[in-house]
């Protein structure tokens, strides 16, 4: 059983984990038995964080209700997400609520016997501005990695981090997702890598110290509107990224594979320092960053050599697209990217659209439903209404947000009503030998495939997903030659 631990640091980390979760729901294969996500973010209320954790919890519930034996022909929710190691999905950052940074570091105690400011106080004043010292931290470090690098040092003392360390086994890998231009991600990434490499919890064979580490560091791909009273100023993003890159170049040599992603086109978001208003729309860069995780998992063990916490050689990779476009279609992506995502994403989109637009008209009458107990009890039950619907809504929202972002990723016509198969932009669906079209063809295929589905009384959702996976597999092969 090999695990891939994915640390998502800060808001970007959470959003990339969301992309990864949705890709896995669609059936993108990860070369690991299970993925263990761990988010490090002091901003408990950040909408991006809560959305991601809710999605992962829904995924786990759906995944737990399906069979995973080799005979199963269901590809949706193919990879297990392990939230047993860190059930909350996140490592808490203590003592940041309603605490100013100056109080966190005990600035008022940095005095000599006479009560005068001592040398430590002077050093702190040199490293941190007055604004830094007065800053509260419950919504993160607001683009200040100098604060983050102090406060985040504590995460290795948490029970969650210790649980992670003790769960690492031979064959496991670690991947770290962070942005380079903010506060939490930029400071948390090098801290985490150093913590891993100097781990005292050696276990057998220095497992944690020598665990293969991959990381994607996301360079500026959005900026925020100017706001007078906000501590986040996007004009500093590039200079911060440059400074961090320079630091990584000389100090961050303990990573086996380092992926970079950047975009010259940037989206202007509302300026939110954090909390429930920090809700950035999904972006293609986050999907591409999630693909770095897929790529890292696919690399052979022989490509990672680490001895006593020292990496023999680091590989560096960048993500690219085939053709420059402000609105990316599948035709604009490289072949290897299309091979990885096009078929599963299209299959899952067909599935989600069917759930959204058609199932209520069909499940009471079609043989595929009547022959397999996909009845009112199932459709109105917890697994369907809450868990599966949660993932479905997140997937459609994710695609919709990416398609309206800048740069846009809009390979699908999400509002195509006339024909559900006219959904890949720039491609006409192939003609098939059938008098049926649109959802009639979909139902016809479901009714054709249903005879091959074996019922599992205790896991009806499994039969349901297996049927839709097989039907959409047949449909995308015939309509899109995928």
């Amino acid at each position: 059983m090999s695990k891939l631990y994915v640390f998502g640091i800060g808001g970007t980390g959470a959003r990339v984990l969301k992309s990864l979760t949705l890709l896995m729901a669609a059936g993108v294969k990860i070369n690991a038995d299970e993925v263990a996500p761990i988010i490090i973010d002091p901003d408990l209320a950040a909408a991006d964080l809560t959305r991601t954790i809710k999605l992962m919890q829904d995924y786990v519930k759906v995944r737990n209700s399906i069979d995973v034996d080799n005979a199963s022909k269901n590809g949706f929710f193919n990879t297990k997400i392990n939230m047993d190691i860190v059930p909350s999905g996140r490592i808490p950052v203590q003592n940041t609520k309603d605490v100013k940074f100056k109080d966190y570091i005990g600035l008022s105690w940095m005095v000599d016997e006479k009560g005068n400011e001592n040398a430590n106080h002077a050093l702190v004043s040199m490293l941190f501005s007055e604004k830094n010292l007065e800053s509260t931290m419950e919504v993160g470090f607001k683009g200040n990695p100098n604060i983050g690098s102090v406060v985040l040092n504590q995460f290795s003392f948490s029970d969650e981090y210790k649980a992670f360390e003790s769960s690492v086994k031979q064959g496991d890998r670690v991947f770290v997702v962070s942005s380079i231009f903010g506060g939490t991600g930029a400071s948390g990434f090098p801290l985490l890598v150093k913590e891993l490499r100097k781990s005292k919890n050696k276990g057998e064979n220095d497992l944690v110290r020598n665990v293969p580490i991959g990381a994607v560091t996301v360079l500026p791909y959005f900026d925020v509107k100017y706001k007078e009273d906000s501590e986040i100023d996007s004009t500093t993003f590039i200079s911060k990224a440059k400074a961090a890159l320079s630091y990584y170049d000389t100090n961050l040599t303990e990573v086996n594979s380092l992926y970079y992603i950047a975009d010259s086109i940037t989206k202007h978001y509302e300026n939110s320092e954090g909390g429930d208003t920090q809700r950035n729309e999904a972006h293609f860069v986050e999907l591409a960053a999630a693909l770095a995780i897929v790529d890292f998992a696919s690399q052979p063990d022989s490509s990672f050599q680490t001895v006593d916490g020292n990496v023999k050689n680091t590989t560096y990779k960048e993500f690219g697209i085939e053709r420059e476009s402000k609105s990316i279609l599948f035709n604009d992506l490289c072949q290897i990217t299309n091979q990885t995502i096009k078929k599963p994403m299209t299959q899952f989109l067909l599935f989600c659209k069917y759930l959204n637009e058609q199932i209520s008209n069909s499940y009471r009458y079609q043989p595929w439903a009547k022959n397999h107990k996909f009845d009112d009890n199932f459709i109105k039950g917890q697994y369907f209404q809450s868990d599966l619907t949660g993932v479905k809504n997140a997937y459609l929202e994710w695609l919709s947000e990416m398609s309206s972002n800048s740069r846009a990723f809009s390979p699908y016509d999400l509002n195509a009503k006339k024909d559900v198969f006219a959904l890949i932009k720039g491609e006409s669906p192939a003609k098939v030998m059938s008098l049926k079209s649109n959802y009639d063809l979909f139902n016809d295929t479901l009714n054709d495939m249903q005879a091959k589905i074996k019922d599992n009384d205790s896991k009806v959702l499994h039969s349901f997903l297996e049927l839709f996976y097989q039907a959409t597999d047949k449909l995308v092969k015939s309509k899109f030659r995928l």
Partner: protein
Amino acid sequence: MNDLFANLYELITGQTDLANELYNSEAVYVPVGWCMVLLSLIGMIVYYYLINHPRFNRWYHWLLMVLVVCLINFGIAYFRANDAIDSMYAEQNQDSPFSAMEFISFSMANALWTFVFSFAFSIGIKWKSRNASRTPF
């Protein structure tokens, strides 16, 4: 065959004068009966294997199909019986003594048997239909 179909029809219409004439003519019960059986079978084959459409697999689509076949068999019975009786009496230079209602009664019996046979054929052949295997139930 004449006896077999006569028994079927007279089960509904009773042994009326018209029924006796239709039995004696030997040109009505057998062809009308065979038409009824074959058209019921063909109607169900068309519904389950040619139409075989996920949009037309509700019970009322099935019923509509059966009613169409019933209507066709109603017409066949009415006109075939009318022609046969008219011809028989015309040969004797007489007018047919039977009213339209008596012919309608026979035609209704044919339609009713059409419904029964269609239902029976549905039970027998629906299972292999891709889209209507659960129609009408």
